[in-house]
């Protein structure tokens, strides 16, 4: 049971940090897009 729990925790840790690495890329790429969106003053309301 303890082995299974440890395995589960390691799987969760691994997936979380993979996800975090990918999310950082999402954050950077969307931030670049955000700057472009803010710089584009056309059609503002």
């Amino acid at each position, binding site marked *: 049971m*303890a082995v299974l*729990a*440890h395995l589960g*925790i390691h799987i*969760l*840790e691994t*997936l*979380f*940090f*993979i*996800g*975090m*690495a*990918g*999310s950082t*890329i*999402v*954050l950077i*790429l*969307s*931030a670049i*897009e*955000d700057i472009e*969106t*803010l710089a*584009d003053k056309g*059609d*503002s*309301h």
Partner: protein
Amino acid sequence: MSSPNSQPLLRSDRVKIVVATSVMLTFISYWRAAAIVLNDLASSAFYACGIAEQAVGKSAPWFILGVMLFSFTVRAVYVESCSMFVRGGVYRVVKEALGGTLAKLSVSALMFDYILTGPISGVSAGQYIAGLINEIFATMDAHRLIPGAVHALAGGTPHLNENFLSVAFALAVTIYYWWENIKGIHESSEKALRVMQITTVMVVILLGWSVITLLKGGWQTVPWPTPANLHFSPEALGFLKHTETAHLLGLFGILIAFGHSVLAMSGEESLAQVNRELAHPKLKNLKRAAIIIAIYSLVFTGFASLLSVMLIPDSVRAGYKDNLIAGLAMYMWGPELLRLLFRGFVVVVGFLILSGAINTSIIGSNGVLNRVSEDGVLADWFRFPHRRYGTSHRIINMVVILQVLTIVASWGNVYALGEAYAFGVIWSFTFNCLAMLVLRWKYKGERGWKVPPNITIGKTELPIGLASVFLVLLTVAITNLFTKSVATVAGVSFAFGFFVIFTISEQVNMRKHALAQKQMKEHFQLLQSDTVEREGLGIRRGNVLVTVRDYNTLTHLKWVLAHTDTKEQDVVVMSARLSQFGAAAYDLATEQIFSDYEQTLFTRAVSIAEGFGKRISLLVVPARDVWSAIVQTATNLESSSVVAGLSSKMTAEEQAFALGRAWEGAAEPRRQFIMQVVLPDSTVRTFRIGPHTPSMKNEDVLLTHRLWLNLTREKGLEKLHHHDILTEALTRFAHDYAGRDRDDILRELRKITGLPLTGPPPAISPITTTGDKPGDSPPGLDS
């Protein structure tokens, strides 16, 4: 213009109903959209860090900052979901991606999120108010300002029980908004914008003053978010606290701490709800709103959390766990009175934003359950309109009863409420992200934007970004299941309860709806149209638009049919299908717009028309605001008059005023028309909507004439006209109104109308109390 997209005609004698599929909305700017979302999202700043610090220790602000940065990516998922052109409610869209069972669970989690928003906001606001009152008592006592008798009576410094007061406050505000929602209040983006403007003033003062305090008085360090610096409370480990795992927390501790901070981004889901109302260009404005929301919440929630731990001494911070920003105000650099005043301002802002969140939670829950009911997974019984106000009172009652029970059960414990709330927030985000991920393969329609990066290998596109966000959400959601025992028990019980209700309702509805669908297909032919256009619908200019809502009160339709020759003038019967804020993430599907209620309503309308032997056209339009929908429809159909029955909650004048307001707010080109309100005794009140020549009282006509007689005797004014006198009089009036005589003018006008004026009145004018036929105005009054 778009013409109706006809479906195959099964029987030629079926009644045609045009169902407009685009919602008649008054569009809002991205600033207003951002304000609406921030009213929900920024309210988390008042309690998120206090809860997180109790769970994980002094490093909590770093995790809150991390969550706020991560919320940028969750925002991206919502932008992608909004950029997809899909119809149907939350249930239908998730069902398409994940199947019926997961869709029901997803809606249950969303409901848990919405319902918990009310209690946590109300209790938190109550804690801020109680904390301020106690602080004032303590300050007064320190300066010996409390009378001895009061001191003796209280057995020391007077002190209120914060938990009792916060529960009482939360109950009072919840019950207040329950009644407002039963009556059907109209939510305005203006109010949200004002609240956010006041909040921004507070945030600017808070951050500016904090910087001065840091420079003047120094600060405490906030430990870095490393496993060694995490100090979990026993409650924060949930089911793991008695296991060996609790002693083995390494990197897993980071994951647990992140899970305890995730409620800082609660409210992000509201972004989807405002999407449909954004002005053109929709996607660009959605992105702009999303940027404002993300930056604002990062600065407010993230930095306020960090500053709280830096500036409030460790020895006293626990005393401010439920009102951390108020505590921050008290530990600024400066005189005590100024700090106390600022704390009062923080409490006022907290009251405004958190009370608004209670209302948003009732509206949101009502909206989601209405949509779920339209999707056939909640019995129609819940959606039955209130006899007087027409609102879905049974759903509102159910939501508020659940909220009241939650408030009482929590007994003012913000931490327990926050833990439970986080369950709904994280699972709601996870299901939404999973649905978006699956729809990358299943949905082949229009999609305006995708979460980056996406890598294409051969013909397969791999959604790396979306999958990454999903992995974080899923792992946090699973971890929370084990570490938030109260939330897991409460959330799973709640979700299971709703799941059972949805499943049973779906089975019952499936049989009932199959029969209703068959009857509907026999009697009605639904014609789908993107927008309402006169030529496309085959309706002549100058038609009469009759608004209907309650099938028990169709007297005004009978009056119209009795007074109209339908060979000369078309009669269009219109029903607005209202969807409130909180239910507007996706457009409705045609069969959702024309539900069983509309079927009953139009069946009655058709039978009345058949009784008169006259033909009517039937129209259903989805709308957020009924008055705007009427104005837009009347304009598009070039109607000469709009006829309505008397509202159960407004006078005829108030109805005309509301329609006039909507007319003023409508986009150009606008058309003037007549509004007629048919009273239950069949007398008619008629109003002109839009600018028009005013009806003049006889004595005013005589006065003008007398002035004209006198003035034409003056040298050089022999050729003066009556209208020249009016022009001069009005020009002088406008000059005086813009100048120093404004107050006098308003006082005089108030004497005449007998009412205080609130804002600019719309261009309406009552012109008669009877009418021979729709659109008729009495002779002699047309100026």
